[in-house]
């Protein structure tokens, strides 16, 4: 309980710092730390697979991608004061959402509606029908195979989208961009 509160507090501090920073390089690094804190929290919430993914994705790949994009776009942001309009909008939205949470079942309540419907079947079926220990893998691969197929298709589409956005023009203009590309690829990343 106390560990979770401390981690949540660290998470909020990190998020506020990210929102306030003008140095985007630092913000990208902090978002990696943010992900790592999240992964610790997921472990405390028994979601080991999610924690695993968050640690690998958030602290690994997405930070690298962010830095790659920053090396192409510049890493300083213009100085900005706190804006009143968006702040009020955010405050109102937050208040409404918190009002909505008052009807939610308490944290960790075993009698909550979410635990009554399909989850017990999945937990019982993982041993009875599949004989596999990791329930998450069983649900991911078999019970919700269609879902996973769709998610894989989304990742495929995103990959194709990035290729279309970033690789298309370079091929067409290959001839006249050779002179400008004096620096090596590795230098931009180092």
């Amino acid at each position: 309980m106390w560990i979770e509160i401390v981690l949540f507090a660290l998470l909020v501090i990190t998020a506020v710092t990210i929102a306030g920073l003008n140095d985007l390089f630092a913000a990208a690094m902090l978002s990696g730390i943010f992900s790592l804190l999240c992964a610790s929290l997921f472990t405390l919430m028994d979601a080991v697979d999610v924690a695993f993914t968050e640690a690998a994705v958030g602290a690994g790949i997405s930070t690298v991608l962010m830095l790659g994009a920053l090396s192409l776009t510049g890493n300083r942001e213009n100085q900005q004061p706190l804006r009143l309009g968006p702040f009020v909008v955010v405050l109102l939205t937050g208040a409404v959402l918190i009002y909505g949470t008052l009807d939610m079942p308490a944290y960790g309540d075993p009698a909550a509606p979410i635990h009554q419907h399909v989850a017990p079947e999945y937990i019982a079926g993982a041993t009875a029908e599949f004989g596999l220990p990791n329930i998450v893998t069983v649900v991911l691969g078999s019970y919700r195979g269609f879902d996973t197929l769709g998610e894989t298709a989304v990742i495929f589409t995103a990959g194709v989208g990035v290729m279309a956005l970033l690789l298309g023009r370079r091929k067409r203009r290959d001839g006249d961009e050779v002179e400008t590309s004096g620096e090596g690829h590795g230098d931009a990343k180092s």
Partner: protein
Amino acid sequence: MEALGVWNYWVVVLLMMIGLYTVIARDHLVKKLIGLGVFQVSVIMFYVSMGKVTGGTAPIIPDEVPAEGILYSNPLPHVLMLTAIVVGVATLAVGLALVVRIREAYGTAEEDELQRMNGAQS
């Protein structure tokens, strides 16, 4: 006392609002995407904290000890969020690629400058 039981959702809402503020108030497009990442993580946190059962354990059935009567946390939100994280990084990459192309076309990735440019053109 009953209202204090949902403190985890309040933190989630707080994180969500920080992300939302970053998306709508900051000008640099990469910063907006970072804010979107914070927002996304808060939604994931919302689902995962919904699946937590007090006294429960990770949904992996142990091999040797008698496996009956162990309380597991709900595996369903874990499955959904697990895929959402990876899809999230793939879509983040699409967003970053768009920003890179915008920067190449306009010479800036700041939203207010982009809007000024578009206003001057039309």
